[in-house]
């Protein structure tokens, strides 16, 4: 076999090794390159920044541990920002397997910022039905969630004072990893109940949400770990996302190089085969 042929059939475990190293080394020895902020992340930041104190901010944590590395940093950054602005945070989830994680992250950030459950924030928990939950919340929040995650009755909580349904929410953000996610929040939520909606999503879903962003149906989009890193830079509290950016750079370049090499060998092979036939 010629060199090209051999290189094209290389044992995939070598590629695994390359990727593994490209991920591990920058995590152990970070470099810290500057991160440019994209307009779609900035618009979310600006909107939250401009909200008056005690506005109602709804965060729907619609993902499960599978997407944790990308969306968990987004959730933490958003919550830190919201608590810093003294907004009333109403959190919930539409994904059953994400419930424990959502509860844990909310409690962690609230504790860090000194916020009180029931007064400054509430975790409504999970309810089956996906889009039905959204519609129900738009009709009457207390029918959809008669009690919060800890079992306390939601009616009468001081954090929900004056809130009857989604129409009373100042800003809602859905951090989604699939269905139900950001799109469901628009179709079943914003379309009828007219609250401002922002989105956060995994890298896989991000390109698909750009039409909604362009048409103003979403006012901003935080895409993947990169988006989380941008948001962390904006709130000036760097966390895991920024730390992971170097590894991201390394792996992307590794893939680009791999693809380039592969194409090089492919073309040289084609040339060889062409020569053999003449």
């Amino acid at each position, binding site marked *: 076999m010629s060199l090209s042929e051999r290189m094209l059939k290389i044992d995939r475990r070598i590629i695994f090794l390359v990727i593994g190293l490209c991920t591990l080394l920058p995590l152990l020895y970070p470099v810290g390159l500057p991160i440019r902020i994209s307009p779609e992340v900035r618009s979310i930041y600006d909107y939250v920044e401009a909200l008056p104190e005690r506005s109602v901010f709804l965060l729907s944590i619609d993902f499960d541990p599978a997407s944790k*590395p990308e969306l968990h940093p987004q959730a933490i950054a958003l919550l830190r920002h919201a608590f810093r602005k003294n907004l009333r945070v109403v959190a919930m989830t539409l994904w059953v*397997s994400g419930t424990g994680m959502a509860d844990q992250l909310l409690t962690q950030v609230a504790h860090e910022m000194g916020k009180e459950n029931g007064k400054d924030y509430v975790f409504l928990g*999970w309810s089956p039905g996906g889009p039905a939950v959204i519609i129900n919340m738009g009709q009457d929040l207390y029918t959809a969630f008669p009690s919060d995650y800890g079992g306390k009755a939601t009616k009468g909580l001081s954090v929900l004072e004056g809130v009857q349904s989604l129409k009373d929410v100042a800003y809602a953000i859905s951090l989604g990893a699939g269905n139900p996610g950001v799109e469901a929040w628009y*179709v079943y939520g914003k*379309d009828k109940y007219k609250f401002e909606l922002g989105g956060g999503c995994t890298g896989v879903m991000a390109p698909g949400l750009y039409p909604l962003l362009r048409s103003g149906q979403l006012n901003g989009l935080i*895409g*993947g770990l990169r988006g989380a890193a941008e948001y962390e830079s904006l709130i000036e509290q760097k966390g895991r996302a920024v730390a992971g950016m170097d590894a991201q750079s390394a792996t992307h370049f590794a*893939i680009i190089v791999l693809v380039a090499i592969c194409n090089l060998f492919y073309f040289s092979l084609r040339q060889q085969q062409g020569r053999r036939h003449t």
Partner: protein
Amino acid sequence: MATGLTLFIFSFLYRDNPLFKLAEHLYVGVSVGYTIVKTVDSVVVSLIYKPIVDQGEFTLLIPVAIGLLMLTRYVPKAAWMSRYAFAFIVGLGSGLAIPRTISSFILKQIEDTVRPVLSMAGSDGLTFSMNLLNPSSNLNAIIILIGVSSVLFYFFFSIEHSGPGKAVARTGIIFLMIAFGAAFGYTVMARMSLLIGRLTDLIEFSDASYGRPTLWLVILTVGALFALSRRSAASASSSD
């Protein structure tokens, strides 16, 4: 424990081995158990039991009945009854979805594609903003219009792709390829992020304060794999 299980799954990269199968089956079992617990907690306790007992909302017994009907699927003689439940759900779901989808994804999207192009002929004459970098500029609005229509044309129209139709279809394909390329780039980004997150956790837990579990478990896992492969090699050679 977490670290150990993580490494078991990583071992799949090397070869399909019993440790991975163990981890995989454990994962499914635990997920299912978790779903059941959460469903019971959220639905039965909060949505059914409390409202009925505390506030006397007996109308909620109707959906409970419908739900139970669904479960008759498992009783072969009575399974046909479950059709009512499914019919209700599917009808309800479709009915809810149709007008909302039309409004959000079709009307609104078409409106946003066409409006920026129309707004170019404003009251103060024809203005044209050329800035490629500003997505709302007029030049970009035209590009978007071309993109949307050519891709729709490529997919929908059963007219043969020849003549002017062919040019439009080819434009559509180029646009599609660029979009898929972007999607691939983003998918790569996403997958790498997932790996990065997991490794960050692993590194965190390999701290000395936890007793260096990562290190020990790596040794343990490699050792176990080695032993297992030895055993299968031995049995393979002894069986002939």
